[in-house]
């Protein structure tokens, strides 16, 4: 079982695939501006945004409860989430963000159960308006996961102990996936700053990694890694 899917989510995704493709109008996507902020927000939501969107969204998505909000909002990926927005912003340079704040407030309350009807309904409306491209990207986002077996093997080799429990593997896979998200988003931001386009190159990732280190998001080694 992929950790990014549970039966309810799977049902939701399947449901979403079936609705007709959204008209590929940029106006439609204006409605999705709220998305970025609304999701089962696992805490902060930030937006990975292009430069022009950046200022618009940035002010709105600075939630009070967002702890790590710096001058560069980041997109955090929880299950039903604004990664979509990342896709959206990449596709469209302009959209309104009027309704965002109210939506932000609504989504900030943490829903214990993943089967919250209101949230599901919201997600449905958002997802029904996706273009093919967005939907495929969102699907990749949801379905992709690091393999638990590989992770377990890695953890065993690191810790030297065979007792790696399943929850531990799941948790580490989840953490790693979010870390990849942070890296990729930051790399995209670096790219937009440098006004480059196309696939992400290693130099962007390195720069993103460097910035994450400065922000303290990467655990520092207490001992230098001498022999790699």
């Amino acid at each position, binding site marked *: *079982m992929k950790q990014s899917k*549970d*039966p309810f989510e799977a049902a939701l995704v399947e449901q979403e695939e079936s609705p007709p493709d959204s008209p590929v109008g940029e106006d439609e996507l204006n409605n999705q501006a709220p998305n970025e902020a609304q999701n089962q*927000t*696992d*805490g*902060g939501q930030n937006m990975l945004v292009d430069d022009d969107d950046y200022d618009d969204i940035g002010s709105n998505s600075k939630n009070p409860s*967002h*702890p*790590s909000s710096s001058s560069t909002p980041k997109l*955090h*990926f*929880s299950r039903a989430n604004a*990664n979509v927005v990342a*896709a959206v912003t990449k596709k469209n340079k302009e959209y309104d963000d009027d309704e965002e704040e109210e939506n932000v407030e609504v989504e900030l309350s943490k829903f*214990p159960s993943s089967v919250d009807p209101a949230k599901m309904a919201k997600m449905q409306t958002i997802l029904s308006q996706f273009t093919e491209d967005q939907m495929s*990207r969102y699907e*990749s*986002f*949801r379905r*992709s996961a*690091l*393999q638990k077996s*590989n*992770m377990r*093997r*890695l953890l065993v*080799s*690191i*810790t030297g102990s065979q*007792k*790696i*429990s*399943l*929850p*531990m593997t799941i*948790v*580490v896979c*989840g*953490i*790693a*996936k*979010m*870390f*990849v*998200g942070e*890296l*990729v988003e930051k*790399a*995209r931001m670096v790219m937009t700053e440098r006004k480059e386009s*196309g*696939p*992400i190159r*290693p130099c962007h*990732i390195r720069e993103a*990694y460097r910035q994450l280190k400065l922000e303290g998001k*990467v*655990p*520092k*080694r207490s001992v230098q890694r001498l022999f790699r």
Partner: protein
Amino acid sequence: MSNPSAGTPSKAKAGSSQPSEASFKRKRGVFQKDLQHMMYGFGDDANPFPETVTLVEDIVVEYVTDLAHKAQDIGSKRGKLSVEDFLYLIRKDTPKLNRCTELLSMQEELKQARKAFEVDEEKLATLE
């Protein structure tokens, strides 16, 4: 037998041929396939550069390694390594923390659901 980074995970050979604690011989390209899809989902191109994927994998492995070492340090005080140690390490990072608690509760739910399902099956079996 070490093959250069192929996309195909042949880690099984590496795993069996050497003790896991002593040698840290890790095959490259362990997470390549998954990472490609993941990076696409997070905003990269549909076909990310292989060098980029390799670099991201290296970074992720290093991240997990550092995390695990730190967790081990914390866990050693308690005796053994547990999930709590990881959760403690990411406590400052709210989105990650929330996501992890979500994953754990989901796993519990699924476990309960499976258990209930099995119980029902047993009941059905005994009835018939």
